[in-house]
């Protein structure tokens, strides 16, 4: 079972996404800010990180940078969840090393599609 680290400061979304992912058969580790997320990566070794961009303590970008600098997590798929309407801004984030991004409000089905792209062995029920 794939392990997904979900880093999101909006607790509503955090709860709903966690619920959804679990229902879909993923193991979910939840973190509500970047710092927590980074610690969680070290502790739980997820297979993928779903990460909001704007968060207190440490934002998505910084988390990504930290992950990419660490040899053990340099290839870890990181998907940004962004509310930004600016296409250029979103593409710029990709340049930083994110594997992909999704725009809020999330389409859960679309989320699944993207997840399967990066976690091919994820089972679907």
């Amino acid at each position, binding site marked *: 079972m794939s392990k997904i680290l979900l880093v999101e*400061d*909006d607790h509503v*979304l955090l*709860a709903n996404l966690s619920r959804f992912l679990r*229902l879909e058969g993923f193991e979910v580790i939840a973190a509500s800010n970047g710092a927590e997320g980074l610690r969680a990566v070290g502790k739980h070794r997820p297979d993928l990180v779903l990460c909001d961009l*704007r968060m207190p303590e440490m934002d998505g970008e910084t988390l990504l940078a930290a992950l990419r600098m660490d040899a053990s997590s340099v290839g870890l798929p990181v998907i940004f969840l962004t*509310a930004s309407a600016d296409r250029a801004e979103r593409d710029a984030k990709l340049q930083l090393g994110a594997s992909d991004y999704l725009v809020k409000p*999330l389409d859960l089905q679309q989320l699944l599609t993207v997840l399967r792209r990066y976690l091919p062995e994820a089972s679907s029920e």
Partner: protein
Amino acid sequence: MEPGHPELELDLLATVFDVARIGICVIDEAGRFARVNPAFCELVDHPAERLLGQSYTLCAPDSVIAVHEKFLRAILQDSPKIPREWKIRRADNTLLDALVSFRSLVPGDGRRYAVVTFSDITESKLAKQQLELLNRELEQRIGERTSELSEKIAALTLETSNRARAQAELLDSERKYQRVINLSREGFWLINGRNETIEVNAALCRMLGYSEEQMLGRTPLEFVDDRYRHIMQARLVPRPDPAEATYEVELKRSDGSRMAAAYNATAVFNERGDREFSFAFITDISERKRLEVELQRTLSERVVILENSLVGIALVRNRTFMWINKAFEQDLLGFGEGELVGQSVAVIYPSKALYEQLGPVIHAALCEHGVYQTESRVRRRDGSLLWCLASGRAIDRHDLARGAIWTIADITQRKQAEAEVLQALEREKELSELKSRFVSMTSHEFRTPLAGIMSSIELLSDYGERLDPAERTELAGVIKASVKRMTQMLEQVLLIGRADAGRLDFRPEPLDLRLLVTQIIEEVRSVDCEQPTIQIDWRVQGVRWVLDERLIRHILSNLLSNAVKYCPQGEPVQLGIMFHSDQLVFTVTDRGIGIPPEDQPLLFQSFHRGRNVGSISGTGLGLAIVKKAVDLHGGRILVESHIGKGSCFRVFIPTPVTQTDV
């Protein structure tokens, strides 16, 4: 005596021989004296006995002695070559001159004899010599005299010609002078010691309209206007003082009109110190007078223009005010009239340092370009500073000593306008920045609850059967709360819009404050899933208050939700309500992130958010709404906040107490 008697003849001859005053001698062929007469003896001063038989050389000069034989022969032969004047030697060896005649004689004895007669011409010779000498002397003297005379004549001639030349020159000069006098445009007036006119020139006659004859003999007094008589009289005295002077007078023309004239008079004195004559040059100054008046008028005009100019104008020389107009001195700078003339320009500089600093700069600019312009502040008399546009132009940039003309214009208004424009631009920039932040934040603020709604609905619809009822209820709650949140935000925006447009009403009515407060707290708590703690410190009696319910709701709910939002979890928020000197005082205190001091002045501006909010959501409109609501109540709001420690908002609402209702 009868001729022909030989003894008579002989006696006669013998007598003659003896008596004759002429020296006679007979010399024989050997050159010896054969016979000598007494006269001869007297001549040579030898007695006869001495002479007879002697050689004639005894009585001959050295020159003859040298050639006595030839001489003798010549005599004996009657040679015409022998001179007829001989010198003979006397006994004392002196020589005397004699006129000689000789003839050779051959008397009966066959021998040849020479008869020589001597006339002593010494005296006559001497006389002749003397005469000659005298003659010569005379001639010499004559010559000398003649040459003297010639010299004198020559000198005289020279003198005469010099005189003539001098005279000619004098005449010439006289003529020239006359021409000058007559051609001069200045009037010329010559009077004698008795003040009678002896000469006037054509110009003067023309000026006064009289002929020369009409003026001769008359005194200048007759031609001067009464008002200037005293001046003329002062000149016509024996010793006018000063000897030369110029006056401005008016002269009377023949037609009665007056002519303004400059009268330059000079008195000429003889050796005794009496005034021999005076002459004057008269210049018609009517034109000059007219020009003077014209100039004065123009000058006055110019002065009026300069003085009434609205622009300050000053002439500055060597950094000193030489002349300054009213606009500059009095209107602009507030000095009294004349206070600045002669003063250094340093007086109007804001500081001595600036005066010293700008000196070389201005100097260099004036030298190179001839102009200098600056926007600067000047110091008024009362010390206040005034923004001005100052322009200086050198009168001659190659000779800065001549000074420069400075113009000054008050640009306070312009500066103000500029400042205002800048301010407005700044504000606009700020506003625009804030607005764009609002736009981006709003999109984030809306997307978050929308995401919540979306995910909740998707879960409910797609996985609803796999969720337990509690979860389903929770999701429904999330949807409701999210919708509420978005609605609130919308309302805030709409409210602020209405408030800005002045369409927010103030409708106070009696209400139950306690109830209202309780409701508000509930609402605030319901929006937030964390269930924050809000403590109430209720210090008023539960009375009915006259308030605008909606506005109070806005005030309290915004303040409370802010307190909750910017507070770390678990920290309680306190709401205090009390009544103090006719005012309701609401106090909302939190121990949250606090408000940075730089943001505090801008706290109540729309869209403004503290720079330390991080990712905490918010529209930046809450406090703006609070402020508007407080203002409409006629109240005040105060903030006290420290970063990291928390904030305390105090709202004072003036309100009369209506009735007590417990």
